[in-house]
């Protein structure tokens, strides 16, 4: 008898403490997700529910959008709806009745939110180049979050940001901290970068976006530098190039080397002409070739560029210039 009382007491204690917790835990484990993760205003969006505690596949699920029933059925785990404009909320209510008859109510507030994660690498591209500067080994990338939660003119300084870079959380966080600096890894190694943005005055408003930023190898391209035309960036010199003149200036452009090292003169240019190393003048990024005599002549030009500070930033190339017969 005494043992039975003890067992009963233990059982009741477990029941008192754990059953409510299980029920509460079941409610906590019903989570909502949207696709897209950050839907913009007036955008179609799929809203789904997930749960580890409730078998949704055998539960009857009823969805209400702004109090209007839109879906009802067993295993009805998602609906398609649309966001409203910025500043407006769609109220989604879900009633879940599991196979055992237990009922769970859950509410989700759907409002548009746009978070764009833009990044730019502090690497070199020539003036007027319309393409993106790409990151290279140990170059610095600046990431900028552009959030819009309530209007397209939201002040980014009013939001709270938490940055996770390369899976290291809390790398940068704070109110108005909408940017972060990211040191890159080796070429071909992506650096996952996540920013979580929230309105500090609104609970549950946090949303995250992630970008994988991939470093590439730097490259050197050759262009003709003509006296009156300037550098002809429209046409890179590859393989061989022909000229009818008696002189030809080859301009080398070191794409995606770090800007700070370039500005500090830390790039080492090693030019070769027909296999022999040649000295260059004050401006090492170009080499002038001349033709001797009137017969046809070819000059094979090679170049390697080495960043002394970031030693894996290195590139090389070669081109042959053919002077025609006069």
């Amino acid at each position, binding site marked *: 008898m005494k043992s039975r009382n003890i067992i009963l007491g233990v059982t009741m204690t477990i029941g008192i403490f754990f059953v409510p917790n299980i029920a509460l835990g079941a409610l906590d484990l019903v989570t909502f997700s949207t696709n897209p993760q950050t839907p*913009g205003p007036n955008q179609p969006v799929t809203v789904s529910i997930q749960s580890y505690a409730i078998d949704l596949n055998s539960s009857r699920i009823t969805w209400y959008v702004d109090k209007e029933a839109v879906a009802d059925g067993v295993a009805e785990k998602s609906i398609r709806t649309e966001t409203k404009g910025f500043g407006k909320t769609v109220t989604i209510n879900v009633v879940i009745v599991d196979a055992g008859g237990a009922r769970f109510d859950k509410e989700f507030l759907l409002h548009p939110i*746009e978070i*764009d994660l*833009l990044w*730019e690498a502090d690497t070199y591209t020539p*003036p*007027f*180049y*319309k*393409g*993106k*500067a*790409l990151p290279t080994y140990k170059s610095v990338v*600046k990431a*900028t979050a*552009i959030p*819009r939660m309530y*209007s*397209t*003119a939201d002040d980014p300084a009013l939001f709270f940001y938490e940055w996770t870079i390369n899976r290291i959380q809390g790398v940068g966080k704070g109110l108005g901290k*909408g*940017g972060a600096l990211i040191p890159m890894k080796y070429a071909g190694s992506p650096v996952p970068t996540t920013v979580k943005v929230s309105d500090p005055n609104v609970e549950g408003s946090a949303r995250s976006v992630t*970008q994988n930023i*991939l470093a590439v190898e730097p490259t050197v*391209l050759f*262009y003709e530098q003509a*006296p*009156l*035309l*300037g*550098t*002809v*960036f*429209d*046409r*890179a010199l*590859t393989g061989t190039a022909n000229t009818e003149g008696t002189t030809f200036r080859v301009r080398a452009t070191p*794409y995606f080397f770090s800007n700070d090292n370039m500005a500090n003169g830390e790039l080492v240019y090693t030019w070769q002409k027909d296999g022999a190393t040649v000295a260059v003048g*004050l*401006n*090492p*990024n170009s080499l002038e070739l001349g033709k001797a005599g009137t017969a046809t002549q070819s000059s094979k030009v090679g170049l390697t560029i080495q960043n002394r500070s970031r030693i894996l930033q290195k590139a090389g190339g070669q081109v042959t210039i053919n002077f025609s017969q006069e």
Partner: protein
Amino acid sequence: MNPEEQPSSKKTLWIGLGIFFFLLLAGGLVWYFWGGGNTGGVTKLFPFSPSSGEDVPQTDTDRHEIGGDSNGDSGLVAADRLFRQLSLKPVAGAYALKRDGEQYVRFIEKETGHAYEIPLAGGVAEQLTNTTIPRIAIADWALGGNAVLLRYLEEDRYTGRETIKTHLARLNLSSALSSDDVGGLTLDFLPDNIVALSVSPDGKSLFYIIKKDGAAVGSVVNVATKATKEVFRSPFTEWLPQFLNNGSILLSTKPSGAVPGYSYVYDPKTKALNRLVREKDGLTALANASGSRVLYGENVAGNAILNSYDPKGFPGDEGTVFYENIIPINTLPEKCAWLSDNMRVLCGAFNLTPTGLIPDLWYQGRISFNDTFWLANTTSGDVTYLSDPKEETGQTFDVANPLLSEDGAYFIFTNKKDGMLWSMRLPQQVGPETSDTIPEGLSPEELKDAQGSLQAPQ
């Protein structure tokens, strides 16, 4: 000679002389009515004789004439030819205008910064200005062709550091257009190192971006008064702007083929940044002048795909609305020009996307396209094949900086392969009432076959 033969020989002589003078008179009449006359001071005695493609320069050093009516083919006059080379030297930027009832193109020569004007229907180019600024990289026209933004690099001879210089140049043409005199440019400097610039479609304003303290700072300038106002500031700096007619600015992130890009419309008055296109790899965009529709390109599985985006949506089946519409030609938006209906575009398109990152390789000058010409309807997605320049001219074009003439009758573009300026006379089918359509879903090669082309695409 036999006396009886003398009258016969005299008769023959008179007949021969009569035929000779008749031919002389006929030749004179033909020359008078259809010959060159005085084209810019060069009188062509034999207007239909083939030429080398270059006009003989005037000895008058105040005028330098290029272009011309004959391009070395069968001697067809300019109005008959589909393609016509407008410049003999690389061009930095062109502008189409109408003056005295005629269609013209003005352009800036890269090597000298001189401005020229050439009539589209035929005739030689006339030099408008003789203010020399070498190595012009980009020329953006404004104020109806009476002002131009000249952009070039100034290199420090000791450090090699390059500074981007930008002139706002006004053309002084008070006498140049009506006489043999050449005008000049009145120059104003804009700030150094303007990294991006766009002139509004009406030519009255321009928007430029400079980098300051790690941020992009954008300003609007009234071209006539030079009044400048800062209207934009962003910690992100890699923007490509396009100024629209309503004063808003399309801002697109600089593209790379494997990086997701974004396009926004920024309203300088409300500071609203409205996203139009999101997360498209290699995104490049070109809005129509009103901003009501955006042509954008993206990389999908190594292919350059062209789409149109309409913020109001395209009507679909059963009342659905979709916002993006695929245009089935391979090209980049910047190889296209919008027609005045703001619905159709004219494009130079390539047959196959080359391997490698697009548009990076094209911007770097590592690849060049051989374009054929197409008309596309951004609403229906229908495309119409227009021409293959290889068939018409024997050479290939890589279309850059395209624009339409003021009357919409010519497609004007720079050939990126050599920097020369060309025009293509548009066929009547490009007009609003006669646009041909062909079935959807065909590849550009199949479409070309459908049009009965005999030459296999390159």
